[in-house]
């Protein structure tokens, strides 16, 4: 690829290069696909190219995008977390359960105030992350199987606690993150944008962010260089749990209730977005900006397929096929011959 023109050139003294400055080439590979999806969408339906529809797409993608940040932190360090999707359901459920006083509608009867319930939601995510950390980092169990079991366990806890009921009638403050608007734009979009900016910079310009890359790129070298590998890994799992809980709160706010299946199957789209966005499953490679383009591509596609009136039963098949194509495309255009 053209970006490799600056391979080691012996004899030449060094310039303060800015080679991978703001936008690496890899982060742009999905742009043509996004543009194509928009063009197709504008032909498919008149309703597509409207600002309302775009806000709609962004809002519907916002929760997914926050979980993608969470997964990216862990993938960069070379591990996995499948249980994030269960946290998206369980954490806001716990908050709602603590708030609701009526036990008939699935509440706990505690009647917790909303301003205590929201920290409780985040705490729930942190606790799940900490337990995952204990099993993966301390006991050295395989991350895939640990978080798969955790996914099933948490899903079951959610069903068990509410008896399969949908929780509604929640205070407006509790729903604010998913329903409020700032300057006419949903809060959840602002929130996702701020998180992408903050964590994107964190991953690039903070030593802990770089430590994640070092761990995923070569864990032994990171350890020899003095990175506290276990601690950083554990921290990443906890922060990821909290982000997933936050995403769950945003989702709950948008639909004004907690359904028992909230977050179900989300993890597939989380991995799909991250991987087509250039995050390596082997760790140490990829950027948050790329992951964001992955989320946007999937969000636009979902929207286009709905507007194009693809029969509902076929939407998933088409969606899956397009994800595969996007993967192939991103390998051909961006990944080049690079491994992983």
């Amino acid at each position, binding site marked *: 690829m053209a970006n490799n023109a*600056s*391979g*080691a*050139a*012996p*004899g*030449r003294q*060094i*310039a*303060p*290069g*800015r*080679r*991978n400055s703001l936008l690496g080439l890899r982060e742009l590979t999905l742009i043509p696909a996004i543009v194509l999806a928009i063009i197709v969408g504008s032909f498919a339906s008149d309703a597509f190219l409207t600002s309302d529809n775009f806000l709609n797409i962004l809002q519907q993608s916002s929760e997914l995008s926050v979980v993608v940040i969470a997964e990216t932190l862990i993938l960069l360090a070379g591990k996995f977390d499948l249980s994030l999707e269960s946290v998206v359901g369980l954490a806001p459920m716990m908050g709602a359960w603590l708030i609701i006083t009526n036990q008939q509608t699935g509440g706990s009867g505690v009647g917790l105030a909303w301003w205590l319930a929201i920290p409780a939601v985040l705490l729930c995510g942190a606790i799940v992350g900490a337990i995952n950390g204990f099993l993966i980092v301390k006991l050295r169990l395989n991350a895939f199987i640990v978080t798969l079991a955790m996914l099933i366990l948490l899903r079951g806890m959610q069903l068990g606690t509410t008896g399969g009921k949908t929780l509604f009638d929640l205070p407006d403050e509790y729903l604010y993150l998913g329903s409020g608007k700032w300057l006419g734009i949903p809060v959840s979009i602002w929130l996702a944008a701020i998180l992408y900016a903050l964590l994107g910079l964190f991953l690039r*310009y*903070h*030593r*802990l962010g*770089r430590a994640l*890359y*070092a761990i995923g*790129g*070569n864990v*032994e*070298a*990171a*350890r*020899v*260089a*003095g*990175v*506290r590998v276990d601690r950083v890994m554990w921290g990443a799992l906890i922060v990821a749990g909290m982000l997933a809980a936050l995403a769950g709160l945003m989702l709950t706010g948008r639909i004004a209730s907690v359904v028992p299946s909230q977050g179900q199957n989300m993890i597939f789209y989380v991995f799909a977005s991250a991987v087509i966005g250039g995050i390596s499953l082997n760790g*140490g*490679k990829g950027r948050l900006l790329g992951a964001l383009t992955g989320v946007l591509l999937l969000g636009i596609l979902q929207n286009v397929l709905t507007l194009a009136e693809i029969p509902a039963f076929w939407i998933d098949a088409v969606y899956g096929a397009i994800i595969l194509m996007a993967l192939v495309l991103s390998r051909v255009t961006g990944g080049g011959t690079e491994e992983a």
Partner: protein
Amino acid sequence: MSQALSDVSMRVPVGDSRALVGRNGAGKSTLVGVLTGIIAPDSGRVQFGGRDAPEPAERQKWRDRVACVYQKSTLVPTLSVAENLLLNAQPAARGGWIRWGAMRREAERVLAGWGMELDVEQDCSRLSVEQRQIVEIARALIQGTRFIILDEPTAELEGREVRRLFDRIAHLQATGVTFLYISHYLEEIYEVCRTVTVLRDGRVVAEAPMEAMPKERVVAAMVGDAAGAASARRHVIARPAGVTPQQPPLEVREIVVGSTVQGVSLRVEAGECVGLAGLAGSGKSEIGDAIAGLIVPNSGTILINGAALRCGDVAEARRRGVGYVPRDRHTQGIVPLLSIAENMTMTIIEQLGPAGLILPRRQQIAAQGMVQSLQIVASSTDQPIKELSGGNQQKAVMARALASAPRVLVLLYPTQGVDIASKEALFAIVERARAGGTAVLIVSDELDELSVCDRVLVVFKGRLTAEFPAGWTNESLVAAIEGIGHGE
């Protein structure tokens, strides 16, 4: 680089037991690769029993002719001894249904026939090193192989087990099995082998019956006629006089690491360069790793500038002034996809900005400084480090160790796998640090790396066995490293 092997010819007659010796990098592993069909020679050929060796792709035919017992297990750990012995050749009824009883009896019969005793129903993961070797040898014999290569078979065995292995080899030899025996311990080959082939720089430099090759001649052949030349190369720079620090920058007192290091003490003064030599597995690397905080010794203390170091904490060791270059830059040194700048500034990351932030400008300036002072050739400090040559990667790893201005520099094989020019450059860097008053410990068994040292300590089987001031001869040092005569 150069050829790993050039013009090597050797014949091993049936029933012989041949020792293959040579220093690291002499070409032993390459030769084993060629003999087992893993590496295809550029020219020349291999014959078994007077017939040309099979095509490289025909692994099974190779396996019928030659077997190699490596230090690493090649058994399937989750299957039983019997299954491993008869893998893919199990006694089976029509349709491929395995007859377990017949398989067990067959395995027992074979083992007994070669004078080996073992419970054939246990899982191979539960075997001791000795038992595993028995199974590997027996498996080769079952397949009809009568030529067996033993690659450092005694490295993990204890005295009694080594004895039994030797007996077994003698017994099999009497039945016409031929052995090629590779070992670092010269003493051993005199017990097991009838003939010896010495490799040096990819060539056969000696081949003779054991009786005709006393140890001194074997060592001389391994070292070659460059004897003394390497140590003469050393530019003797007197240590800064007048500077007589009360506390040595580095002192190690009686450290014990598992069973590999058994009570080693040493001290390195300011501006002194000390070599720590020994065979693979002698414990020398563990001493280096313990100083760097990578492993926690079972007992003993490490003092930096006279104060005890909390062990097992890499960041703490560095704060106290220890710079470290790991043994293998690929597995422990570099993060290949990250930039040169990032790889080099890992050890000073807290100096690059407040609150854990990394200010790109400061990182660039720091990296530029290192690139210039160490003359690293790269197109940009933002280049991924994997694009650099080996020598420049190693310089970057060295730059990282030096970045924190260490008082103690621990270097494991600092010039391994780099070209001559880079080697000289790396030595110059070490020399500069040393002249600046840094205490340097070079852990290696490469003679040219040791030749820059003021004195060399030899570790053999976990203990310091000899000390050589500058001006040692290659023969005497190598003999001490190989454990002959245990010191002078």
